[in-house]
């Protein structure tokens, strides 16, 4: 799984990089128009750092590297938020070379808790949490029903997509979009969108 995770993170990075313009355009509409640029820069840096970890099997170590790299290369709000998410997800997966439904559930929970603490945000404020929290809940429902990792992640990704749609209907109260207030309604949140496309990339990766 270490090798798989390496490839999975590469796939996530490629998705972010290839969606740079789309994420930037979403951000330009309601924020400061740099989300795609910053995230792409971060995952370009991850790509370089990953080369040294190609034979690393400890999933926690790989995720920790990803988190540290994002923190030191992304900047903006996305750097600390996603960086913290990956760092926190590294804890439950430390020393593990394989991931099961239970561990992934713990990783998602830790990542979301980290994002909430760092961003001092909660669900419903038009942020990435509006994609991630429903995704986590859908994942855990799948886990309760003894579904496979892929089935749980599929449910999570679908919930995240609905979460992104939901962000179009609400007014931002966190992040730079919040300065727009009512004018932010009608636009989907760039952070929620990047969270969703990461999850969806994992699903597509596992289907292959």
């Amino acid at each position, binding site marked *: 799984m270490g090798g798989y995770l390496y490839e999975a993170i590469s796939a996530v990075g490629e998705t972010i990089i290839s969606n740079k313009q789309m994420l930037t355009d979403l951000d330009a509409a309601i924020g400061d128009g740099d989300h795609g640029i910053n995230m792409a820069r971060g995952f370009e840096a991850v790509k370089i750092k990953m080369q040294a970890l190609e034979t690393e099997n400890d999933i926690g170590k790989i995720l920790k590297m990803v988190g540290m790299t994002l*923190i030191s290369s992304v900047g903006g709000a996305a750097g600390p938020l996603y960086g913290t998410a990956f760092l926190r997800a590294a804890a439950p997966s430390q020393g593990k070379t394989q991931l099961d439904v239970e561990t992934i559930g713990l990783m998602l929970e830790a990542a979301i808790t980290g994002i909430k603490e760092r961003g001092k945000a909660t669900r419903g404020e038009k942020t990435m949490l509006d994609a991630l929290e429903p995704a986590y809940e859908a994942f855990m429902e799948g886990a309760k029903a003894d579904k496979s990792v892929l089935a749980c992640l599929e449910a999570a990704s679908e919930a995240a997509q609905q979460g992104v749609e939901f962000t179009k209907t609400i007014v931002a109260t966190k992040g730079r979009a919040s300065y727009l207030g009512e004018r932010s309604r009608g636009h989907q949140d760039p952070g929620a969108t990047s969270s969703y496309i990461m999850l969806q990339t994992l699903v597509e990766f596992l289907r292959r």
Partner: protein
Amino acid sequence: MKKVINVPEQVVEEMLQGMVLAHPQYVKRVEGFEVLVRANKPESSKVALVSGGGSGHEPSHAGFVGRGMLDGAVAGAVFTSPTPDQVYEAVKAVDNGKGVLLIIKNYSGDVMNFEMAIEMANADGITVDKVIVNDDVAVENSTWTIGRRGIAGTVLVHKIAGAKAETGADLAEVKRIADKVINNVRSMGMALDSCTVPAAGKPSFVLDDNEIEIGMGIHGEPGTHREALRPADEITAHLVDKIIADMPLVVGQEVAVLINGLGATPLMELYIVNRKVATLLQEKGVKIAKTYVGNYMTSLEMAGFSISILKLDDELKELLAAPADTPALVQF
């Protein structure tokens, strides 16, 4: 996109190199980092002041590194907060035992990255505290819990907290003064035209020929509303009204005024704005103790300006008048 640059990826690096070459008597580079610190360490131990944020606001913040103002400045990518490791390097470079105060503009990204740097520095045993500037009255505080944006008023925090630090005051005292400035300064701006982030390659927003944006932020974030262009006096009166509605000024109150250009506004126009601001304040019996007019907190090549008004008491007035010797602000 039409800009005097080489490649978008190198704008911050090449700007920093150019700044050091232009002002070697004031600033030097912390090698390997987007950090400028004073060329010469202060003669006696003092609280060190560090500010920073996304680039594109020049001369903020590195232009205010020097005696009487900042000790270090961190330059992020254009309009993007610097990362925690960069801020942490700045803190390490300037700390001389009396602690470090971070002056942060209130943007979620800046606050998060600077707070992570504080955690890193605290783990090293360096005492670091922070103040968060939120002077922009365009967005009402009551509606959005995250609060207001930090804009040009930040420069007045650098000036006054910097002067206090030079007196040898301790960290708590310098922080108290910085917070006092923050509590007494209000700003609001407007844009005639947008700006283009080099890496984005196209304007952050588009205004029609006859359209202006009221209350926009310094990152090209759209403002509160758009309206048709009006004469300078009318626009100025509107911004001053907004500021005074938020921070009432009584007859006899002394203030400092900062008319800030956003990058592409001729000084001629800034002086025209200042003329009206001065008239309006005089009519209200408010006394202007100090006026700054110029480009202090820009937004790349955005056309437009902001007005900042700082309420002064004897303590703030004296510190504002104290000497400063930096690339972008010299006063004796």
